[in-house]
């Protein structure tokens, strides 16, 4: 149950990209405990790809624990290099959020003394989306075509790791995109042959842009499939809550609630780890 925590805790204190903005003036950190009764503040990344799904999961957790969920668009909108990221996350978890949904549970997860990570409630893959009907997998795409990847994502990492083991002539040129909307536009206009992105980002695009229905998912072979385990952060001030949330996630995975939410939101993947 806690095996994912070990690598995460190992990273404690390793810091983040700080360029010129690291550090939190102490006055910015509150030293108070919220008096909220049976309500908890549940934050989501305002720029997150799966906000609606994550809040549905939070409500299910709240129902299971007889807690009122107060959704808060916690924070988000960071630069591509992560500048200031840990500062704002620490501030949010210290000052505002009891729980923060939609967090990637991985060895690269950022942790600090202000929060700890729950067990994952869902596992959702990265996908390769193209428009060309003749392609069934990445291997079918000619090597002179370009690919887009969601910048800094685990899906991108898997592709880079594969590509670095091959000669330049045996791999696709990859362009990093920070904006999935722009990346989809470039697939649709033929600038790039396909894009590797998290499936909820594709589901969001297809829900919001009619022309994105032309995008279809094909296999990533010869590059391995990649998936993200998604969990939540819980404030370090409330270890009791952390244990309760873990138990609630177990129950929601077991009784099919999470799987039903996946289907409702048109997400691939499966409940739990």
């Amino acid at each position: 149950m806690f095996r994912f925590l070990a690598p995460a805790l190992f990273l404690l204190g390793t810091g983040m990209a700080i360029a010129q903005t690291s550090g939190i003036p102490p006055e910015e950190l509150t030293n108070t405990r919220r008096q909220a009764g049976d309500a908890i503040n549940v934050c989501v990344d305002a720029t997150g790809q799966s906000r609606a799904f994550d809040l549905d999961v939070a409500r299910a957790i709240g129902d299971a624990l007889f807690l009122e969920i107060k959704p808060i668009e916690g924070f988000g909108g960071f630069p591509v290099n992560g500048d200031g990221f840990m500062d704002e996350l620490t501030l949010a978890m210290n000052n505002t959020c009891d729980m923060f949904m939609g967090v990637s549970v991985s060895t690269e997860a950022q942790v600090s003394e202000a929060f700890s990570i729950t067990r994952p409630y869902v596992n959702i893959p990265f996908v390769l989306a193209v428009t060309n009907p003749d392609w069934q997998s990445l291997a079918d795409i000619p090597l002179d075509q370009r690919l887009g990847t969601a910048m800094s994502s685990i899906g991108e990492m898997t592709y880079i790791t594969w590509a670095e083991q091959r000669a330049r002539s045996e791999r696709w040129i990859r362009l990093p995109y920070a904006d999935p909307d722009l990346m989809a536009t470039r697939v649709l206009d033929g600038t790039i042959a396909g894009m590797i992105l998290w499936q909820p980002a594709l589901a969001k695009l297809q829900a919001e842009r009619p022309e994105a229905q032309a995008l279809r998912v094909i296999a990533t072979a010869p590059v391995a499939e990649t998936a993200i385990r998604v969990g939540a952060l819980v404030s370090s001030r409330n270890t009791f809550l952390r244990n309760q949330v873990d138990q609630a996630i177990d129950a929601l995975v077991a009784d099919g609630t999470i799987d039903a939410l996946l289907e409702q939101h048109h997400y691939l993947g499966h409940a739990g780890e």
Partner: protein
Amino acid sequence: MKIELMKTLFAATTALVALSGTAFAQGITDYKPVTAEMLANPPAEDWLMFRGAYNNQGYSPLDLINKDTVGKLQLAWAWPMAEAGIQETAPLVHNGVMFVQTNNNIVEALDAKTGTLIWQYRHTLAELPAAWSYQINQARRQKNSIALYEDKVILTTADAKIVVLNAADGKLVWEKQVLDYNKGYSYTVGPLVADGKIISAISGCSIAGTAGGCYIMAHDVNTGDEVWRFNTIDDPENPAQQASWGDVPPENRWGGTPWTTGAYDAETNTTYWGVGMPGPYSELIRGSGDGSVLYTNSTLALDVATGKLKWYYQHLPRDNWDLDSPFERILVDQDIDGVKHKLLVTVPGKNGIAFALDRDTGKYLWSKETIVQNVVKSIDADGTVHINEDLISHAVGEEHLVCASVSGGKLWQAGSYSPLTQAYFVPLTEACNTVAPTQTEFTAGNAVGAVKFGPRVLPEGITDAGLMQALAVNPTQGESKWQYRSRPSMTSSVLATAGGLVFGGDAARAVKAWDQETGEVVWSQTLNAPIGGYPMTYEIDGEQYLAIPTGYSNAASSISSAFPEIPLPTGAGNSIFVFKLPKSN
């Protein structure tokens, strides 16, 4: 219901107060406009711009406070800053009034003789949604400079505006939305006023929405109309610049932020700016191969009339470690054997290497290492910089120990040049950290960050974090004149004066005066917090004053583990302390 209504009314009342802008407006009755002539030749008693003059030297011709008298300095007054934040403020003085900006674009006018508040302007920032955490983070930094021109105070704001105030009472004259903060644009450096233009540079160039565009811009000083803009990461007129990004088109490029207010040479109507690192940091992630990714980490010389590029010089090509090179560019004139040499001297980047260029041509003259660094292997006689390719990661997670660290080395703290001793004084920090390209997916599917930095550590064999480096500068070489090492890191910019002194301070809350010739500390005073911002000096009624900002410092906290015996205050204490000599009678 009643309670909710009352809450609403209370909020509305609060909003009205906030919107009113100027909280105090006693006004200045005899304010003398700052003319273009004064900006070109600043009166000795004033401090009219970021580093005192267009040349960015950070030098004052005042000499009442000197090696003989500095020991008698007494506190004249002190003032708390309007808000907490990271202390990077650069006070200006004119007409007996100190103008100082704090974070969130609050500007205060103080009686420079007594510290009494005259007026305060609070910029009404857009209420930033939670999705704009980066801008909120940036707004927390106290902006490094504002500008004075005619009867106006000019500032650039966290919500990407140019704001012009009436210097006499702090009332808003006009403001201009320069770029779209919804895309992520935000100002973190202040403007330079020259040739009838407000010249500044935008930040936020690492936000997804700003891909492909990072600008140095000029606006008409009277109307705010845009005159020109220069894109630091996309120059269609230079094929070499385009090729330097390899396969990466402009819409997939980030970075290139000019973090420090530029210099200006009126003789050639040229402005000089430094440019920061590329984004993403690692070429493995950004896809630029072995390209040099111009104009990141370069000095740019731009024609002020047109914004056209005159020349560029890249101090650190192919940056993989966030060792950006945007810091102060200093213009130095030296007459040697009847020949006038026009130099641009700088320690532009975090790796601490000093450079001198011919500022009319961009020709490389010399370079000199200062702190321990391992990213630049050699520099050819023609100025070609060769990086240490052994430190480039070729796999995700491949880690290298890199010196200097992402925190510097050199950082925003500006050095100063003294014509008196022809020496360049540079505050530096000895530090290394591990660097590894990685994927950081905090919010699932919504990644940020492409490089992981380890904790800052001292280089092997070094026990002192702080280094004050004096370089003897001439057209053919820069040689170490003296070094002053200290356990705590240097945390402020430095000020050189005609009194033969250099002022600056450190994480141990000590402001010091060094003898420019010898490096001997001839005065030291412990204050309330790490010394920060930009120390400056001015004169009123025949008395010279010395202003020292203090407060919260990244340069202290990022390397504080190197000097654990020196505790840092838990309160920021952002303040201005002003010293002067006792009256002789």
